Each structure stands twice: as structure tokens, then as C-alpha cells.
């Protein structure tokens, strides 16, 4: 398909979105990520039944933490898409990048490159 999506996106693969941990999400912000999103399977299509629902709940939990820290909760989102939806993956990547770009850089300074 060779679809283009913004190069600023760093993809971290997991066996299931349910494997996402609150700490993974927070550490990304600690290291200065401007935005983080979790791309899970369509609701109802989880191979492990509820992994994507659990991921969404964790994303919502992190939203509350960000809010308490005075960081826009919109900097973290959960998206559902099937693995057959390459074009949607690229579209979400573009749209989320635009949303975050509109918000400006994260108020947390970037970690220095190792």
C-alpha cells in the first residue's frame, strides 16, 4: 500500500492494546512527547475480548493525571481501527499530528538525546 504518514510518529508495537500500561503512556510524556495515542482494534473485535476496552480506560486514567498536572488531556487519545485499515491508520496519524501541532509543543521539556 505504501501509505505516507507523518515521520514524527514513533510506533511502538504491542501484542494487544490491552498490554499498554499507564506507566508506558506517562513515560512518553516524561520524555517530552507532545502527544501519545493508542491504536487498538475495533471494539468488539479484540482477540483477547477486552484488551482494547482496557486500553481506553487506561488512556482515560492518564488523561486525568495530565489534567491534574496542567497538561491538556487531549494530548493523549485512543483510536480504534482494524489491522486491515491501512488508510485509516495513516489518516489518524495525520489528523492526530495536526491536532497536537495545533496545541503546540508539550509544556514538558524534551529529554536530552542519549
Amino acid at each position, binding site marked *: 500500500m505504501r501509505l505516507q504518514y507523518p515521520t514524527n510518529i514513533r510506533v511502538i508495537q504491542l501484542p494487544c492494546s490491552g498490554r499498554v500500561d*499507564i506507566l508506558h503512556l506517562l*513515560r512518553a510524556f516524561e520524555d517530552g512527547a507532545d502527544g501519545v495515542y493508542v491504536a487498538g482494534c475495533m471494539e468488539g473485535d479484540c482477540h483477547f475480548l477486552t484488551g482494547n476496552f482496557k486500553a481506553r480506560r487506561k488512556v482515560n486514567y492518564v488523561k486525568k493525571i495530565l489534567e*491534574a498536572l496542567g497538561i491538556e488531556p487531549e494530548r493523549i487519545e485512543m483510536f480504534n481501527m482494524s489491522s486491515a485499515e491501512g488508510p485509516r491508520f495513516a489518516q489518524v496519524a495525520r489528523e492526530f499530528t495536526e491536532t497536537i501541532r495545533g496545541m503546540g509543543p508539550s509544556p514538558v521539556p524534551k529529554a536530552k538525546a542519549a
Partner: protein
Amino acid sequence: MIVGDSKPLEEILEMIKDKKQVLVLGCRGCVTVCNVGGEKEVGILATALRIAVKKQGWDIKVGEMTLERQCDPEYIEELADPIEEYDSVVSIACGVGPQFVSERFPDKRVYPGINTTFIGGAVEHGVWAERCQSCGNCLVHNFGGLCPIARCSKSLMNGPCGGSANAKCEIDPEVDCVWHLIVEKMEKMGRLEELAEVWPTKNWLTSRDGGPRKRVREDLKQ
């Protein structure tokens, strides 16, 4: 287990904002089981604090450590070396933790990172409910295994009261009337007539009303 709730991040930040080295200290006891103060929560709280520190441009080092328990001096002792690097501690154990830590290390500022709420159990994954009020004189066997002290809003020994409606308590339609549950359970067990017994006023001296409590086992004491 002892159940607690995390304090709001804003409150914890206010505590530590003028500190230089802060240790977030967890406990592998009850608060690990109720997902509020174990190793995982230490990581989450410390990371959240580091994000806040970076955002504000403060110069605070936030460290992480989790003890086996914070209610036993031998485990608190493990802090002796690592605590040297810190000027303050945020303990996310129950209320015992910050007291034991500050007693052992009197020159450190120790802050409670959680609010200890009750003695209870997990009624489903992620939901905990109060089951014991540590009144010091357990009587649950007389009430079908249900505690009227901890679970009745009025701690009635002879219930239910007039506020019970449709098996719920008048304080909140979400709260079960434990006396309704007691009557149902006793009926099911064929023990309903036992509830005809009128309980005299409870002696609260064994509870907190008798002042701070202490337990001594002479055979174990050194």
C-alpha cells in the same frame, strides 16, 4: 486489607514544591493489593511528579522505592542508606507508613501520599468495600456473618431502622441496608428467631473510644 485512596496530585505537589530530593515510598502490603501504594503506583506517582517538576522547571530529584512493609521496623531499616540521598519522603502506605518512617528518620520530612479510608475487601476487580471497623469485639457470627457495626450507617445492633427501604439505606440508594441482608441471610439459614434477641448497648471501650490501642504478646516480646 487496609484500603486507601491516592491524594490529589495537586496536594502532593504542594507538599514537595520547595524540596530538593523526594523519595516516593511504596509498601508491598495492603496498599499493593488495593492498587494504591505498591511498586506500580510508586512508578506512576513518581513519573507524574517528574513530569510536573520538568514542566514547572523545578530542581527536584524524584526517586522510587518500595518496602516489603512500612509497618515493621525491620523493613523501615532498609531505608537507612538510600534515604541519605533525600530530604523528604512521600509515603504511599496507609497512615502507619509515614509515621513509622518519620519516627525512624526524624530529620526527614515525611508526607502521606494516600488517604487511608477503611478496612475492607475487594467485592469485584477494582471495587473495594468497607467490611470492618476494628471495634475490638467481633460479633459477626451473631448476624449471619455480616457486620452491623461496619456496614450499617448507624452501627445499629438491633436493626433495621425506619430508614431502610427496598433493601437500601436512606443515606444513599447505592448503599445496601446491611440489616436487610442480615434478616435475609438468617432467614435462609433458618436462624431468624435468633434476631429476636435484643442486644444491649455495645461497649465501645474496645474500639477507639477507649483511646489508642496496643496489643502485647508476652511470648513473642523480647
